[in-house]
């Protein structure tokens, strides 16, 4: 059994190495004058914050003469919120939806009035929900109604797990109730038929993108606009097309300082400067370049070609707010659950 011994030895060594790595890495603070902050963010923002962090570090160095290091942590928006509640020492959270930040605020880790502390409801950039279709749009998908047609295979993540996927669901709902002035029953019917057309409910936005692009499953992928553009650029040979529906939701990923952590670690000044930096011209430009929608009108114009104007409604108009949306649509026995319990 040399192989078994080998495995045991190697795994022990690896375990030891990772323990050393963990403890070594957890040493924070400023021996060498470097201030480290941790940004807990959601899945698709890796590329965006890589660029923003580099710009922020330069900017902070110039203005304050101090070296900052920004460490990124990515994951599903909901599980990031849970990690922060469970003790992830994040200085700032930049999550997919305000509801997840509210969850942390409920635990008194973030100021209750966090949404008012920064401009635009503490959402320095926005995005929306669009459709990605295959080369030549063979199923002729133009609007939300087309997703409900028999035989259309839809790809979208599970809204009970993925924060981003809740925007998808609410966009379809708002299309009926707000854009078409339809009743709740009509919305329930359309959204139900769309979700019954889903052939794979992944656990996150990146998983769904994988399914659609790599496994070539499905006719249409309901996606964040920025993920859609990224997907299109990533696989130009697949000639994916992006379809803008007649109306969609204004997705407002929000940001906040984790008060308890920054006060404990003395990083409040840097953390606040970091979030304010997101509203500066430099950051707004990076945001537009990374195909998120800038708040600043100048940069909205600059990127108007890639980010066209369409009628957008907000979560407050669709459901009143995140607490209400969560309760009504995604809780146990809520609208989403009922879609699948009706299904035989």
């Amino acid at each position, binding site marked *: 059994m040399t192989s*078994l011994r080998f495995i045991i030895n190697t795994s022990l060594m690896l375990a030891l190495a990772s323990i050393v790595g963990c403890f070594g890495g957890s040493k924070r603070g400023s021996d060498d004058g470097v201030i480290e902050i941790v940004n807990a963010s959601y899945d698709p923002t890796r590329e965006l914050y890589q660029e923003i962090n580099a710009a922020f570090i330069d900017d902070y160095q110039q203005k304050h003469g101090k070296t900052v290091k920004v460490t990124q942590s990515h994951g599903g928006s909901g599980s990031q919120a849970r990690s922060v509640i469970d003790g992830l020492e994040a200085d700032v959270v930049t999550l997919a939806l305000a509801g997840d930040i509210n969850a942390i605020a409920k635990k008194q880790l973030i100021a209750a009035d966090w949404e008012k502390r920064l401009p635009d409801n503490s959402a320095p950039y926005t995005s929306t929900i669009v459709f990605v279709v295959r080369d030549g749009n063979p199923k002729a998908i133009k609007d939300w109604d087309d997703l409900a047609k028999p035989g259309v295979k839809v790809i979208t993540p*599970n809204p009970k*797990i993925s924060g981003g996927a809740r925007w998808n669901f609410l966009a379809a709902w708002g299309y009926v109730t707000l854009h078409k002035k339809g009743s709740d029953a009509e919305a329930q019917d359309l959204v139900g038929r769309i979700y019954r057309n889903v052939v794979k409910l992944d656990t996150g936005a990146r998983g769904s993108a994988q399914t659609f692009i790599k496994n070539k499953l499905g006719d249409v992928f309901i996606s964040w606009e920025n993920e859609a553009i990224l997907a299109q650029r990533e696989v130009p040979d697949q000639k994916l097309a992006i379809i803008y529906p007649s109306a969609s939701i204004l997705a407002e990923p929000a940001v906040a300082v984790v008060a308890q952590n920054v006060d404990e670690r003395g990083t409040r000044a840097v953390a606040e400067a970091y979030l304010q930096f997101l509203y500066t011209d430099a950051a707004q430009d990076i945001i537009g370049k990374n195909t998120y929608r800038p708040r600043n009108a100048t940069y909205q114009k600059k990127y108007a070609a890639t980010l066209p104007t369409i009628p957008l409604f907000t979560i407050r108009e669709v459901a009143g707010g*995140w*607490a209400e949306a969560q309760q009504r649509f995604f809780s*146990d026995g809520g609208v989403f659950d009922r879609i699948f319990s009706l299904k035989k």
Partner: protein
Amino acid sequence: MAGQKRRALPGFGLSLGYSLFYLSVLVLIPLAGCFIKASNLSWEQFWHAVSDPVAVAAYQLSFSTSIIAALLNSFTGLIVAWVLVRYDFPGKKLLDALIDLPLALPTAVAGITFANLYGSEGWFGQHLMFLDPDGFVGHWFSEDGWFGSTLFTLDTRARGGPLAIVVVLMFVGIPFVIRSVQPVLAEFEIAQEEAAVSLGASRWQTFRYVILPALLPAWLTGLALAYARGLGEYGSVIFVADGIPGKTLIPPVLIIAKLEEFDHARGAFKYEEAAAIASVVLTMSFITLVLINLLERWSKKFEPSEA
């Protein structure tokens, strides 16, 4: 070993205490925590969480695919172990080393690879379209087909359904069967087989009455390990299964869904409901593992005596 006075490790009391401490810290207390968390719910809430039709369908899917994968593995695993022990061929060492790979590989990588291979445009998947509902085999088992309409419907798709889950669970489970039976086979004296043959036993009789009794306990251990591994598998299954509630959703995904569900009224995540579902899976796996253990003990009765 039984009569030996001096043991390699010191003191029964010390080593037992050490074992119990270790098992408590690493296994018993965390598992008990799961039940304690779930016990914060009232009976009604607990029952509501665990008896939800989507949850019940998820248990069924997980247990049936794990059992089927473990049974299939127990046969293929035995053959592989046999080949590795009894024959010499070029590349044997390499093959032997490869068997442990599924243990080391992050299962998500396996999941992505399988999803690609068995997808409609994958190397295997493109030749397996007859298993889809509009293919001839798949149609037969669907609601409109003969089998599906007269007996029961079966999701035979090569990707996305239970069959695909069985395939990845076989991948993650195979090392357990091979590594369990391999040492027993290696120690098994060929002389015993030769004796059986010289006494006029057929091939089948040699296998059934000489090899199998010696092999059975280890074989069942391998089966139990592979089965337990299948129940706990998450990473690869989420990539190959469609994850449609009530159809192709496994309990771990359901548990994660509960953990992501923030209850704004109570101001907390639904840890308790997640723990409730987890405790059902734990209890059911524990019962099946005890049963397999009993079977294993019973099978040892048939082991040929050393004399």
